[in-house]
């Protein structure tokens, strides 16, 4: 990184990749200059990850060439070889970290870069890493075990790993998904600094706001094709959103809430069983009819516990969970479903559907023992099919029909299936856990519309989300989770992202200020 001429670092030319009949990438070209931050924006399934996997050598393209800057200008990168990509200076930070949890940050950074026998010579490596840290601002305690680092620190280790290998191009796949807004801002500062030193950055995301904030240039992908390329400084939010979905997205509007009686109440609820990311400490709040409550928080701060309790998968270790004023003593999802609680699971592919069973089976699964779908132990296939058919029509579930296996559905259609399953019963309490994670803009708007419609019908809704934009779009009232405690941040009006961000980071001063 000596002087910084504005020269090309990377060029992808007419990359095409097919999976059977599906064209994942269709003649996509892109170039990256030294010192540039390029955002790769697109809905899920638009081909972002496929393109980056080709660049990184995980996939072999059917057509097209990848060129990376080498000694003699741009040189063709042999396809299908991650080793060659690494050697050419392409570094990738995956969404799910690839770190050895029980080793130190230093060991993780050096891992795989040195021959087995020279592993003893740590001092030279340490000097090099410390220099990178000083230049970039990626401060991390190199000697702590990775398991003891925060998510933000782990991400910094991942970036250091790439830089230590002399990456000229750094690819970040949805890097802010796991960060608080403040941590994300910190990351952006680092990225700008790295870019100023000559690094080329490709930033993959589906969040418009942050893409506009960080990038110099935006490449929008849609359905495997390049939908447009814009300069960030002059780009407009709506124009990008339209490029992503290919049609104008109707803004979801909502009337002010008219909160009614409390339908579900947490009264000093503590939860200790299960994984630690579930545990809760003396949590109290109410879900009222006709109101959407947004639960913000960095993932792993107790949201899983709240979700488990509302879903009927757990009961409080202490305190009481009241449904319609009556305490719940048994973890029984079926009883809750029968009582009018609708539950959308956080991981819809894993917890929401049985992939090898049919769409009809998956729509009936929660109520298979109810008279609607069975009589004295025998399934009523006719009723199940009829229900599935109406759900497919009403919720626009794209599938081959009621008998299609659920695993063949895309993420958005799985979520529509779950919406159809839980909303068709006109539930009184709704838990929407990460309701639009991984969904494209069009499907997101659809899910939001359905949730708001349910609220207007008088349902009490809790939305748990890591996407603050989504929470601000939906919530009438905010709760913030931090280390198993829940702070009531009050009505959404008058709250802004930074206030919520401070609460997410556990700043009690802000909490005290709000409580008054």
């Amino acid at each position, binding site marked *: 990184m000596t002087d910084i001429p504005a020269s090309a670092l990377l060029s992808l030319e007419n990359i095409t990749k097919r999976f059977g009949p599906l064209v994942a990438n269709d003649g996509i070209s892109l170039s990256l200059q030294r010192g540039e931050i390029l955002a790769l924006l697109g809905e899920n399934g638009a081909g972002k990850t496929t393109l980056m996997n080709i660049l990184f050598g995980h996939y072999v393209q059917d057509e097209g060439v990848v060129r990376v800057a080498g000694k003699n200008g741009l040189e063709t990168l042999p396809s299908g070889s991650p080793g060659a990509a690494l050697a050419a200076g392409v570094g990738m930070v995956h969404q799910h970290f690839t770190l050895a949890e029980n080793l130190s940050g230093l060991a993780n950074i050096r891992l795989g870069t040195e021959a087995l026998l020279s592993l003893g010579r740590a001092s030279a490596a340490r000097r090099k890493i410390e220099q990178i840290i000083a230049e970039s601002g990626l401060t991390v305690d190199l000697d702590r075990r990775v398991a003891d680092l925060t998510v933000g620190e782990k991400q910094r280790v991942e970036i250091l790993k790439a830089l230590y290998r002399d990456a000229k191009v750094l690819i970040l796949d949805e890097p802010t998904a796991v960060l608080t807004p403040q941590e994300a801002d910190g990351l952006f500062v680092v990225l700008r600094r790295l870019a100023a030193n000559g690094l080329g950055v490709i930033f993959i995301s589906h969040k418009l706001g942050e893409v506009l904030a960080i990038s110099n240039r935006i490449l929008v992908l849609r359905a495997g094709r390049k939908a447009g390329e814009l300069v960030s400084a002059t780009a407009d939010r709506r124009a990008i959103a339209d490029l992503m979905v290919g049609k104008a997205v109707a803004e979801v509007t909502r009337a002010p809430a008219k909160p009614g009686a409390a339908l579900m109440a947490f009264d000093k609820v503590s939860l200790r069983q299960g994984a630690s990311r579930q545990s809760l400490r003396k949590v109290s709040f109410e879900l009222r009819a006709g109101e959407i409550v947004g639960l913000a928080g960095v993932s792993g701060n107790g949201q899983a516990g709240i979700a488990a309790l509302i879903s009927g998968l757990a009961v409080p270790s202490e305190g009481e969970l009241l449904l319609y004023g009556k305490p719940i003593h048994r973890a029984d*999802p079926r009883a809750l479903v029968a009582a009018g609680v609708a539950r959308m699971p956080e991981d819809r592919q894993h917890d929401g559907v049985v992939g090898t069973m049919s769409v009809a089976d998956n729509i009936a*699964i929660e109520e*298979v023992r109810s008279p609607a779908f069975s009589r004295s132990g025998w399934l009523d296939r006719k009723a199940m099919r009829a229900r599935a058919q109406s759900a497919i029509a009403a919720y626009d579930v794209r599938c081959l029909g009621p008998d299609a296996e659920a695993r063949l559905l895309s993420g958005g259609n799985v979520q529509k299936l779950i919406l159809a399953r839980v909303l068709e019963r006109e539930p009184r309490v709704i838990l929407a856990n990460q309701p639009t994670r991984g969904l494209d803009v069009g499907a997101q708007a659809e899910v939001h519309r359905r949730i708001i419609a349910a609220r207007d019908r008088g349902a009490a809704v809790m939305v748990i989300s890591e996407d603050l934009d989504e929470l601000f779009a939906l919530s009438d009232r905010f709760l913030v989770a931090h280390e198993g405690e829940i702070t009531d941040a009050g009505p959404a009006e008058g709250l802004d992202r930074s206030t919520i961000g401070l609460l997410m980071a556990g700043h009690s001063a802000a909490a005290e200020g709000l409580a008054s």
Partner: protein
Amino acid sequence: MSFRLEMRENASVGLRLGVSLGAGIVALLLVAIPVLFAGGSPLTAYGLMVQGAFGSMFALSETLNRATPLILTGLAAAVAFRAKLWNIGAEGQLYIGALAAVLVGSGLLQMPPALLIPTVMIAGFLAGGMMMVIPTLIKQRFGADEVVITLLLNFIVILFVQMLVEGPLKDPLAMGWPQSVPLLAEAKLPKLLPRLRMHWGLITGVVAAIVLWVMVRKTVLGFEIRAVGENKAAARFAGIPVDKTMLKVALISGGLAGLAGVGEVAGVKGYLSADLSPGFGYSGIVVAMLAGLSPIGTVIAAIFIAAVFVGADSMSRATGISNYVADLVVALSLLCVLVGSFFLRFRLRYDRKLEA
């Protein structure tokens, strides 16, 4: 140029059938090699095997007699494996079922056959079922692996039965042979045809297969078993009682293996001994895998495996080629099915690599 594996979206019924059939055929082809080494002609050997298994009414009866316990242990494995409950203990459950039949049917109860036979069968079913319910409970309570528990229990049960037939249950009239007191005539399963060993256990097996087939497709319990087997997390989230469903599966699975034991004592031997089963419980796993865990397929696969054993015995008497050939065929069919099921999930693609 290279070969590449690609995930299949869907495996058709024809393909599934093809894999099972293909596995059997490939196994027979592979076993032709050792037959050649033994100095025999594979064609003659297999011809004799077919004749030995199906060539006469007597041969057919022997094959079906042999298939009877295999159908039941095969169903035991199939129903459990569907729910991802790895019951490797059908052998032990068979012996416990046989033991229960002897305890109930050798004089404890005096009833006419119409009552005693069902009683003996229910006793065998429940005893075998408990032998699977208990390991399942231990798995649920303590997280112990059911493969290890059920596998090891097989040896414990057989030693226990050995102790009983040499001790408290020993038949004083058996001239010192280690065998139990005989069943009452009223407890014995009637023969299907005079002078042939085929008995009503065969009908029990076929009926059990049909009942299971209907259960999986048409009943809420079958729905729940499928959901639990295919995705435990989603089943739990949807409110299906996962542990309870697993216990029901365990009872059915162990019970079916127990019925196999009842069939062997009440239908064939008339008494219990420690050599009642030449590994019917283990062969049941092969049967279920060959059948792709389909109940109806299990009946067919059981008859195939039984024919291999019976045919090999007869072939061995005629040619002098060892009847170990049968074990080879069975073991190789299992391996071939495992390889074949890989191709149910993936397809092999011939790939020309791009020039860089």
